[in-house]
């Protein structure tokens, strides 16, 4: 079986799960719950993007939220109606105040631009290893944030950029998450992904075998940057309002917590981590405002979500450092489960004739 068809087959279960979540929320969810599900899909797309780089290289990246911001601001600048843009960014450079494009070209340009920036930045980052690479990604995040907040003519500085047409809906989120899932799984199982993971396990051995480590890191970084851009576009075209603060430390740490919780070495882990944190956060959030449960009126407990997030991360990191799935994919777990059942069945069938003989 070819790589693509094998990946499609292996992705069937998580894709069905995502479709089921979207279908369930759309059919019985309240409008605000649809928004919760949409934010889940944005974060899921972002976590898959982060997994492509972190899962492959083994390096943490603090810089990915910047790609989300670059793509979000790109669609904002290209898609916002001219009349509003004359008010928001009348002095935009390169004649951008007079440019207005449709959704499809805006999204494509945003993704290409994010990819190009990711490639250029990646040329430097891919040559670094370990802590140096991680600090460089942090520096990248800070630099992009400083540009957003200080290039007032183009980004409005720290003020909100509003009026972006809200064209996306839950199905966009679902579609983007599925595309991100497929890209992440394809990359992980491709020869490039396998070589990169090998290099992250033993750099010297991989280099000795001829693995082009820098080139593969650059590929993973650029690819994950583009997928992260999808998450940014989802946010901008749903909220209609963005500001630099949406693409900074809070977002960085949230998606990183989701990935580490599930296990950064597997795409299935990324999905599990995002699911657990999203459902847990929403559950604790609904408890925060003092609801009535089984006739008992609970007191308001604001801050419960932060407590939950902190507690779950500390627990998982203490007891399961490799994340919930321990770096395994769903199909690996299924295979292990089947093998165990088979060996258990073999043992019982081997026992039975022995008993008969006795």
């Amino acid at each position: 079986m070819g790589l693509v068809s094998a990946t499609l087959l292996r992705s069937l279960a998580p894709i069905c799960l995502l479709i089921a979540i979207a279908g369930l929320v759309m059919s019985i969810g309240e409008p605000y719950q649809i928004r919760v599900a949409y934010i889940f899909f944005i974060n899921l797309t972002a976590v898959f993007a982060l997994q492509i780089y972190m899962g492959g290289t083994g390096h943490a990246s603090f810089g990915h939220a910047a790609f989300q911001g670059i793509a979000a601001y790109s669609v904002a600048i290209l898609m916002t109606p001219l009349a509003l843009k004359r008010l928001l960014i009348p002095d935009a450079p390169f004649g951008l105040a007079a440019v207005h494009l449709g959704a499809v070209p805006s999204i494509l340009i945003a993704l290409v631009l994010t990819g190009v920036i990711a490639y250029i930045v990646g040329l430097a980052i891919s040559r670094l290893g370990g802590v140096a690479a991680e600090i460089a990604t942090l520096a990248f995040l800070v630099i992009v944030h400083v540009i957003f907040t200080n290039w007032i003519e183009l980004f409005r500085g720290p003020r909100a950029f509003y009026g972006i047409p809200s064209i996306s809906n839950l199905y966009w989120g679902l579609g983007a998450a599925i595309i991100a899932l497929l890209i992440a799984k394809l990359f992980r199982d491709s020869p490039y992904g396998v070589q990169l993971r090998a290099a992250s396990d033993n750099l010297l051995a991989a280099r000795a075998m001829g693995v082009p480590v820098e080139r593969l890191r650059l590929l993973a970084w650029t690819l994950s940057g583009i997928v992260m851009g999808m998450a940014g576009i989802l946010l901008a075209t749903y909220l209609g309002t963005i500001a630099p603060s949406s693409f900074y430390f809070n977002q960085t740490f949230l998606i990183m917590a989701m990935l580490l919780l599930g296990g950064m070495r597997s795409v299935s882990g990324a999905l599990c981590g995002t699911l657990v944190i999203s459902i847990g956060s929403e559950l604790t959030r609904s408890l925060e405002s003092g609801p009535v449960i089984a006739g008992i009126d609970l007191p308001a407990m604001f801050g419960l979500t932060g407590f939950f997030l902190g507690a779950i991360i500390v627990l998982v990191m203490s007891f399961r450092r490799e994340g919930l799935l321990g770096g395994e994919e769903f199909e690996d777990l299924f295979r292990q489960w089947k093998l165990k059942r088979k060996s258990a069945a073999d043992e019982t069938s081997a026992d039975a004739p022995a008993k008969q003989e006795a």
Partner: protein
Amino acid sequence: MTIQRNPKTFRRKAGSAFAAALLTTATITPALAEDKDDIVIGYAAAVTGALAPYDSPDGVQCRIDQINDAGGVLGGRKLKLELRDMKSDSALSATVGQELLDMGAAAILSPPTDDTSIPIATLAAATSTPVLSVGGTQPAFPLAMPTNGYLVPYGDNASASAAAQYAWSQGMKTAVLMISHDVGSYSLMTPEYFADAFEHLGGKVLGRINYNSGLSDYSAQIAEIQAMDPKPDMIFGGLIVPEAGVLPRQLDAAGLDIPVYSTDGPDDPGVLEISGKGGKLLHFVTHGFPAEGSPLAEFYADCEKRGYKVQNIFFGLGGDAVTVLADAIENAKSAEPAKVNAAIKELDGIEGITTDSITYKDRKGIPLKGMSVMEIKDGKFSMIEPIKPDYVAAP
């Protein structure tokens, strides 16, 4: 010692916990209104996160208690607060806004920044539900959402104009502006509004100095001011804590007797301690002052008696927000969101808590309010005079 765990048991346990979580979610229902006649006021507040100091659920709840104890609105209907924490996050802010709209809120109180308030007002626009930013002073929000977006405080343009008017009356002829990109439009645009009003009065801006908010040393900026020739009569900035205290302290230590003017950012008890002896150089225009016998002092006293803790001026603004809504509901003779929205636009000179007069009529969502000029005297905030600017810089 390594503890061996059975992954199978772990996963089974995790699966059960997940299923239990889902079941619990299904059984949770929001606290039901005691009476379906209650009028729901939604509040998407920054209870946690970076914006938390600029929202006040307690101030809002206390004013609601007062109104309900006095018989409610529309001949006996009670106000009911539905509070949700948006955790200072713009995406969650929109989600929470939608949740409040789903509950049928007559109006929504929103967080203090434009990027967190605009998404709520966009969603609420479909039903013309009014959205009032309790602590936001950035005119950008009502300008972006002219049909249903309102500020409860004055706009930064009005407070900066008031500061310019007071400074001019004190004989200030030249000013240097402190500009920062760190505190949204407050630290970026407020100095420009000041410049507009100051120059309108005949003053002159000698220069603009960049700084970063939140530092403990501004000697570089002070050296720049020291080197200026001629020296400015005053300094103006959209300052917050700590720089609102650090800057005057270091100016005083450097022997520079140049007064520092600002708007409501320094209105925090932390400034008293940080500024030390330099506190005498600080002047600022704020929303109100709890002078003895004032409505604000009475509100604080009554709320403390009810068990609430007054944190800062945003407590009073929370009270103002509810007063505005209650008056609009009474004038509209209805709690229907669109009618309340239309009634807010007609409010003219109503008595508030932080100020004696609030006007929304013909103000494009940015109310005209009385303000207070403040100074630090004997280690305490003290009001110099109430002020209403004659000229207001365009937002």
